[in-house]
């Protein structure tokens, strides 16, 4: 025992931890298991308790130079050795070197008769003998609960197990105690009651027939720890725990910029391209050229002499190389030079966690500065939105934290939700380029625009995106009178115009008819007036004629009278 409990609360004194050497676990626990104290690992059958415990011991020997004792209550030593040989551990080598002792304690219930009070001093002596003989620092008891089945009188057993844990602490042993999951309790026999320092729970989660192992730290006295359920994996390299997210967002950001590989695209990002170490999402509908943008980026990385890892989930290596050659991107020389590495696999080949571990291993062995993930959409077939998102989050965290890797993801989306990525991964991305079809004049063209680019002043223009034999070209689009119209928008506009035209024509026709009617009315009015006028004229003419007649008659009578009076001839009188 290195510290008393009280010390952990005082300033300056921190809990000393014993690193497990298990990938990810030391990160989650902030350095490992509490040194010199027992840790309980509980879980259902087959959840990986034994592997976990054994890995702790093996790593102790191989990585931290701490010898260990493995006490099995369940499996004979030969079985254990065989089982772990399949995980790549040669346990015999450790025991030959006196670095590790594996012991099998077996109690046959049927052979035993209880005849009064007893204690477990035999176990203590046995453990003590083994620990002392190799100077062990670590010990595993797998599973001490077997004693409950083998020995009667639970009261004595409990008291003895309590004494055992005290003894382990006194010996300064960092211990792992495994325990079977119980109903409503962490362990079937309530071991958690005695192991109060650190409790880790292992579990299975099955989704769509793919099982994911998960780990959760239930308690860790005197230490902060991640509280999430962390997926973990057992493969031929042992256990890897994968933190869902890094506990902190502390990755360093650089202001270094790297070219996109497409000069006109660079100009859309202030002429400099992406940030190094950022994450880029290229999404678009089928056939819009997502992979081409990715390949161009890969090519430019290789041209700079950087390594690029291309994770392909839809096409094989040779297929990609052939297809890219058709648009003037020749990737083959880079593969031969060893700067470009393809990793092509079907997503359904294994579970998400397995993929993640594969990628981890590839990245740590190949050490690329650019990783291309083409496409993320296919991952949907093996996990729910959330698990895929959490996997990508962890991948990005890993890539950003450790290596300053620039990552480019492609994502297939559908027309309806082009700007709504299927997995809502956009929030994880620093830069988002959208590729889409633009239909003008009976042809489909590719359009490219930058939806977002964190920390980069970027163009807001839609550009036309051309895939030619000479390579990728980005050009300005043709803009119409006041807007660029495509697809259904254009159809809607046309229909609207058609309707407006119809209304206008009907209006004109109606106006014409109205005019006609007015003219007819006026003409008939004119007729009436004319006939009135004509009758008045007639009347006047008659009266004029009568007046003339009268005058004539009068003048004739005057003349007659003058003649008769034989008056002088005078000029005819003026007309009145």
């Amino acid at each position, binding site marked *: 025992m290195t510290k008393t409990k009280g010390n952990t609360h005082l300033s300056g004194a921190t809990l000393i931890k014993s690193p497990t050497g298990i990938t990810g676990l030391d990160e989650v626990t902030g350095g490992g298991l509490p040194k010199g104290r027992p840790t309980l690992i509980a879980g259902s059958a087959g959840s990986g308790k034994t592997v976990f415990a054994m890995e702790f011991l093996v790593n102790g020997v191989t990585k931290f130079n701490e010898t260990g004792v493995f006490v099995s209550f369940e499996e004979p030593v030969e079985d254990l050795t065989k089982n772990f040989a399949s995980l790549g551990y040669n346990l015999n080598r450790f025991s030959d070197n006196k670095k590790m002792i594996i*012991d099998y*304690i*077996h*109690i046959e219930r049927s*052979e*035993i*008769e*209880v*005849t*009064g*009070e*007893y*204690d*477990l*001093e*035999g*176990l203590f*002596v*046995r453990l*003590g*003998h083994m620990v002392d003989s190799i100077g062990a620092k670590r010990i595993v008891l797998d599973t001490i609960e077997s*004693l409950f089945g*083998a*020995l009667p009188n639970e009261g004595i057993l409990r008291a003895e197990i309590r004494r055992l844990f005290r003894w382990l602490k006194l010996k300064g042993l960092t211990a792992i105690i495994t325990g079977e999951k119980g109903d409503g309790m962490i362990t079937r026999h309530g071991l958690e009651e005695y192991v109060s320092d650190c409790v880790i729970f292992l579990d299975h989660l099955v989704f769509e027939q793919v099982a994911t192992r998960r780990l959760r730290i239930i308690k860790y006295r005197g230490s902060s720890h991640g509280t999430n359920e962390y997926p973990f994996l057992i493969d031929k390299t042992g256990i890897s725990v994968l933190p869902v997210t890094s506990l902190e967002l502390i990755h360093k950001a650089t202001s270094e910029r790297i070219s996109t590989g497409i000069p006109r695209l660079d100009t859309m990002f202030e002429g400099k391209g992406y940030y190094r170490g950022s994450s880029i999402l290229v999404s678009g509908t089928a056939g819009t050229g997502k992979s081409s943008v990715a390949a161009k980026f890969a090519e430019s990385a290789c041209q700079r002499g950087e390594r690029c890892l291309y994770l392909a989930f839809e096409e094989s290596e040779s297929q990609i190389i052939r297809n890219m050659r058709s648009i003037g991107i020749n990737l083959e020389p880079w593969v031969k030079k060893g700067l470009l590495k393809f990793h092509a696999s079907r997503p359904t080949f294994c579970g998400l966690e397995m993929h993640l571990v594969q990628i981890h291993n590839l990245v740590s062995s190949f050490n690329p500065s650019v990783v291309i993930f083409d496409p993320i959409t296919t991952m949907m077939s093996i996990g729910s939105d959330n698990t895929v998102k959490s996997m990508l989050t962890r991948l990005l965290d890993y890539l950003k934290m450790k290596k300053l890797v620039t990552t480019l993801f492609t994502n297939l989306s559908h027309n309806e939700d082009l700007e709504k990525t299927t997995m809502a991964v956009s929030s994880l991305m620093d830069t988002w380029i959208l590729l889409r079809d633009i239909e003008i004049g009976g042809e489909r063209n590719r359009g490219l625009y930058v939806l977002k680019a964190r920390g980069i002043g970027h163009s807001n223009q839609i550009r036309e995106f051309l895939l030619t034999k000479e390579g990728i070209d980005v050009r300005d689009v043709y803009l119409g009178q006041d807007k660029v119209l495509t697809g259904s928008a254009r159809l809607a506009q046309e229909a609207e115009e058609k309707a407006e035209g119809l209304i206008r024509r009907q209006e004109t026709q109606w106006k014409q008819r109205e005019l006609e009617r007015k003219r007819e009315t006026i003409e008939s009015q004119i007729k009436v007036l004319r006939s009135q006028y004509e009758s008045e004229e007639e009347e006047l003419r008659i009266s004029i004629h009568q007046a003339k007649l009268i005058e004539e008659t009068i003048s004739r009578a005057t003349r007659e009278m003058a003649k008769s009076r034989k008056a002088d001839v005078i000029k005819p009188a003026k007309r009145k």
Partner: protein
Amino acid sequence: MEKKALKDELKALGKKIKASPGKRYVLSLYIAGATPKSTRAIMNIKKICEEYLMGRYELEVVDIYQQPELVKEEQIIAIPTLLKKLPLPLRKFIGDMSKTEKILVGLDIKTRK
């Protein structure tokens, strides 16, 4: 006369014992130091042996503190443990040997009812 009869009887008894070779007992009692429990166990088992197995038993008392390697060999977990090595089958008795009836039945000295 009376004395002779008693002697004869004893002789007959001795012959009887010797005539049953399968009934020879080899016992080991594992204890840990001189705790009261250990002492009690030694006393109890000695009494049983003397009473029921006189002349046909070997009792070995092992202090596991002195011989810790035996603990593994014989899979001794609980202390005190009495190991019946012979006659077969192997049988273990744990505890302070205070339950005489149980031990007698277990040692096949008495049959279970």
